[in-house]
């Protein structure tokens, strides 16, 4: 089979997972479970976006949630009806107070803006390597947060921005998540993805082969920014309101924990990790006995869930540093098992 077809097939098989989950939830689950699943899909999109850059280049990225925030705020501000805007954002700059976009147009513009910002920041961040790069991503998260909190006219500052028309639902989210699974997988197996992964293991060898590591990392960073921006847009259209706090460290840690638990080196790992952490989180919450909860977001009063998150990261890294799935995609793993079994059978037959 041609490589990209194989990768497409592998991605499609994996993409079936969110579809199956979505369909089962729609058929059998209660309203609160649907809400949990919706948030799960958004987190999954963000985790996949994170996997694209962090998993392939192996540089820890702590600034990804900034793109979720940018996507969400841009889409939200564009989509809020003019009538509401005149009360909550009367002084919006760029004449935004008299602009009202439909969900599609808002999504397109928001993803485009996020991508452009990702490109500009990527130019800086990809000049750094290793740990310095990680810390620059963290500085970026803080910069964006500071802007969200202080640009009162545009974002309402620390207060909630509300009134965004609810324009998405579980069906949309399910299909978008599935599409992003395939996209992340195809990127991983693409020439750029393979070169990037090779360079993360041996930078000098990769450079010697004529691979422009910086360019590859920039490309992954921008693609990741676009995906995460889309995740942010979906958040805006699902919840209908947001505040800067929604896009800061709590969400950063949550999505990171998902990726680490599953294994950041593979797309399968990102999917499995998102599922496991969501399930674990809900279970912890059940044990905590906290009555009224929405979604996967960290509750105001941590407790078991906070320990669960931190503990998951520490224990998984100590015992299984590559995460549950490891370096290979699930389909590759299964294929290899089958191939080995066949080989053994053949050897046995020959002998």
């Amino acid at each position, binding site marked *: 089979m041609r490589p990209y077809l194989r990768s497409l097939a592998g991605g499609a098989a994996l993409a079936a997972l969110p579809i199956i989950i979505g369909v089962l939830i729609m058929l059998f689950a209660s309203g609160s479970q649907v809400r949990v699943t919706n948030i799960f899909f958004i987190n999954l999109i963000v985790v996949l976006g994170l996997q694209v850059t962090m998993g392939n280049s*192996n*540089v*820890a990225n702590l600034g990804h949630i900034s793109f979720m925030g940018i996507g969400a705020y841009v889409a939200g501000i564009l989509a809020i009806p003019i009538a509401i805007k005149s009360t909550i954002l009367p002084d919006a700059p760029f004449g935004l107070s008299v602009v009202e976009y439909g969900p599609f147009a808002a999504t397109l513009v928001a993803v485009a803006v996020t991508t452009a910002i990702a490109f500009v920041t990527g130019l*800086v961040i990809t*000049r*750094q*390597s*290793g*740990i*310095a790069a*990680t*810390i*620059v991503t*963290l*500085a*970026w998260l*803080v*910069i964006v947060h*500071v*802007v969200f*909190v*202080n640009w009162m006219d545009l974002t309402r500052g620390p207060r909630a921005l509300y009134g965004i028309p609810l324009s998405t639902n579980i069906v949309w989210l399910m299909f978008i998540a599935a599409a992003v699974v395939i996209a992340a997988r195809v990127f991983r197996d693409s020439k750029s993805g393979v070169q990037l992964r090779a360079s*993360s293991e041996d*930078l*000098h060898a990769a*450079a010697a082969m004529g691979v422009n*590591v910086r360019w590859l990392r920039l490309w992954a960073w921008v693609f990741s920014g676009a995906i995460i921006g889309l995740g942010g847009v979906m958040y805006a259209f699902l919840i209908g309101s947001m505040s800067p706090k929604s896009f800061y*460290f709590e969400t950063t*840690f949550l999505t*990171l*924990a998902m990726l*680490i638990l599953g294994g950041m080196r593979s797309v399968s790992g990102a999917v499995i990790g998102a599922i496991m952490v969501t399930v674990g989180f809900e279970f912890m919450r059940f044990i905590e006995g906290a009555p009224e909860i929405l979604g996967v977001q960290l509750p105001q*009063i*941590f*407790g078991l869930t*906070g*320990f669960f*998150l*931190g*503990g*998951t*990261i*520490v224990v998984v*890294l*100590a015992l299984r*540093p590559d995460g549950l799935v490891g370096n290979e995609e699930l389909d590759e793993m299964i294929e290899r098992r089958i191939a080995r079994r066949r080989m053994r059978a053949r050897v046995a037959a020959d002998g």
Partner: protein
Amino acid sequence: MEYVVQQALNALSIGGEYALLALGLAIVFSVMGLVNFAHGEFITISGYTMYALFIFAAPTSAWGLLPIGILASITAAVVFERLAFRPIRNAPATTGLLTAFGLSIIVKNFFVTVVATRSKAVPTPEFFTEMITIGTINIQVLQILEGAVTGVALMLLLILLRHTNIGLAMRAASTDFNTVRLMGIRANQVVLAAFAISGFLAGLAAIFIIARRGAADPFMGFAPVLKAFVAAVLGGFGSLAGAVVGGFALGIAEVVFQVVLPESIAGYRDAFVFLFVGGLLILRPQGIFGQSAQFGDKEG
């Protein structure tokens, strides 16, 4: 004139605090390639230990709390190393960084659950907040102390690094840990010393941070350590001299932006400071003191 001196002292004391923290980060990083994101938790643990002592032992003077606060920070550093970082000592840098993140979350949540999310008052000696008048200039004792203590701590560290075997070993380990072991020096001792020093420096910084805030809360360690990270990167991550220079440079940059930025956009100070650092790093990606052409070094 008075205003300038006042602001210069401000820059010096803030810079000193960042330098202490950045130096702790840099020592651990240079010895074992670990980016300790849980460094801020040393400050938090220090704060809550002082709080607990204040509540349960009810000392008559706040002076007694200070050594305990420092001791708590050192202990925390050593315990973290033993329990969480030793198992992953030879893992890629990214693994260490993320483990530290996990630890940080656990510690924060511990205090949220066991104590409270709200801050708790921690007393420090009143002497700290007294004012000294020199000529026409009023200076807070705390500011002088911060500068002086930072200076003394740096001096002690320099002596340690130059004139003791463990200090020499730590410097040597930053380039070649295996060969240090071939000198018969125990790897665990070198790492332990690095963590203990890092904890000690964080403990000093913690005292000043608590003296300024007058309280401890579960998230208090985060903001200063974030700045310390930026300072360390600015100086060239892993370079000890760079950490100190980066710390003071960041302190100066903060005060300058504070003074220069008009009231209306003062809230953006941190954004400007970080953008400024980002700009510097475009010109000099390896930081002020970092070695160039090390693309990929210490990378997972």
